[in-house]
């Protein structure tokens, strides 16, 4: 399980970084979105990974065997904020496309 999550985070982050370094604004926004997925998964996995277990704590059980719920709460906030900023960024990209006539991040082909 750890390997799968780690690989997923790695691939998402790697693709994200590559896309962010590309010159087109569309690539940039997709790259940032992929990076934020990687970060969200990372936060999620900080609270320990456990599979095939009920999510509700039973008083009789050892709490250290369960995942920490706090990162799961944090990741919700992070997702919402990331969603909002991506939407805002998209608007700016469209305005930039309209004003400069190109979708290059520098506002001119080069």
């Amino acid at each position, binding site marked *: 399980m750890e390997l799968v999550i780690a690989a997923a985070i790695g691939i998402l982050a790697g693709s994200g970084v590559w896309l962010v370094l590309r010159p087109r604004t569309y690539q940039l926004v997709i790259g940032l979105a992929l990076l934020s997925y990687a970060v969200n998964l990372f*936060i999620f996995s900080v609270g320990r990974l456990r599979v095939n277990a009920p999510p509700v704590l039973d008083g009789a059980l050892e709490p250290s065997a369960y995942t920490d719920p706090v*990162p799961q709460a944090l990741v919700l906030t992070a997702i919402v*904020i990331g969603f909002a*900023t991506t939407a*805002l*960024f998209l608007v700016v990209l469209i305005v*930039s496309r309209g*004003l400069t006539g190109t979708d290059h991040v520098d*506002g001119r082909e080069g």
Partner: protein
Amino acid sequence: MDIAPAHIVIAPVLIPLAVGALLLFFDDRERRLKLVLSLLSALFVLATSVLLLLRVHTGQGTTALIYLVGNWPIPIAITLVADRIATVMLVLAAALAIPSLLFAAERWEKVGPHFHSLFQFLLVGLNGAFLTGDLFNLFVFFEVMLAASYGLVLHGGGAARIRPGLHYIAINLGASLIFLVGIAMIFGATGSLNMAEIALRAEKLEGFAQPALHVGLALLGVAFMVKAGMWPLGFWLVPAYASAAGPVAAVFAMLSKVGIYSLLRLALLLPGQGTAFGSVIIFTGGVATILFACLGVLASQSMKRASAYFLLMSSGTLMAAFGMSHPPSTAGALFYLLSSTLAVGAFFLVVEVLEREQDAASNVLAVTLEAYGDGEEEDEEEPEVGRTVPGAVAVLGVSFCLLAMVLIGLPPLTGFIAKFAILTSLLGPGTDVLAGNQMRIVLAILLVLSGFVALIGLSRMGIRVFWAPVEPFTPKITVMETAPILLLLAMLVGLMVQAGPVMDLLNTTARDLHEPYRYLQAVFGAERTPPFAGRPH
């Protein structure tokens, strides 16, 4: 004096939040109403911040006022911590916001929608970031502040603003992701988000948790340094600030200080006895930033770009001085922070007035008018001999000159006092602690050098604009635009006159920062307010 005793701590966040939301309901044409509400909110924030500062500073043995959100017990509660440094920053932010708002009233609030709401939300983010004692909340307030700043940096629109604005947003979104990874690693290592509790647990970490915490802190440091504009993470800052509207750039002078504030707070609160975490890196980055800003000041032709480089110069000086992790240097640097933030903010406003007469569009217009024979104005012009200096030029010239003195560090204004305080802390009597520390020599040389570079850059600028203009120089400035500039100058003069008491306050602030046990005691000593009177429990 006990009006709303506990809740006053959260007022600097709640007031602008409520006013900003309220202003959304009004049409943008209701300018006066919006301006008045916006100003009232800023004034209230200033009043509560001053009240908080006085309470913290004059209270017997008080380090901080703690507010437990929702009245949960420590450490479950999200805490707001109004200690000396936080309240000083609150007062500074409000003091800079009021003149910026006044200045915007003349021109800038009209050129785009929802200026005042965005401005209020910016204040929410700023004040929240200063007050919070919780890492994740720091992130949330940073995002609130940044989201508002994205709107403000593009305020006024136009391709020239969109291009650097796009870079600004992209870089800051990336920095926010790094911030999040850092928070997650710190939480993974210590199991807490409360800064005081992290500091407490950091000392007892074993095995893998220790390096994990350090990596997390380093990542947070990177995010803060991007905000502060440290070289080589700050290339986005100059184009973005130089293209932003004048009053926006003025209040953004405060924005980059949030990065420095957070850096200082976390570096000193967290591991290490005596020296700040990563202080060598902070120092080196600061030195590199000063050098980069010096080159920038000398190289820039446009005054707005030069003022953005002055902002970088002040960021660099602050980081280098904090990197000494020597309490008297920190106190001197805090004074420099107050002085340079107000001065750079005012300088952005002055430059805005000077430069709008000289931008490309108005030059073209002037040429066109000449070619098509609108020569009436020239006929009215008096002969050169005996012509008095127009009032606008006099006001702008004197303001420019005074601000230049602050930025260069000439006596008697605050820039000199600040640099003198830092230099004394490095080389003066009682600096045996620093013996053998070569960093102090480097910093002392750079402080003097940056002053000299500022002198060259500003004299060149002043001569070009006021003494030897290519075209007749007749800036137009209204009372509404003069007042905020004079207000900021008055604050600088006030700071100069009251330098003694202010330095006392800042020395105590630096002591609190360098002895984090006081902060920890204050946070863990916070008591829940009792339930409503007469209610059984």
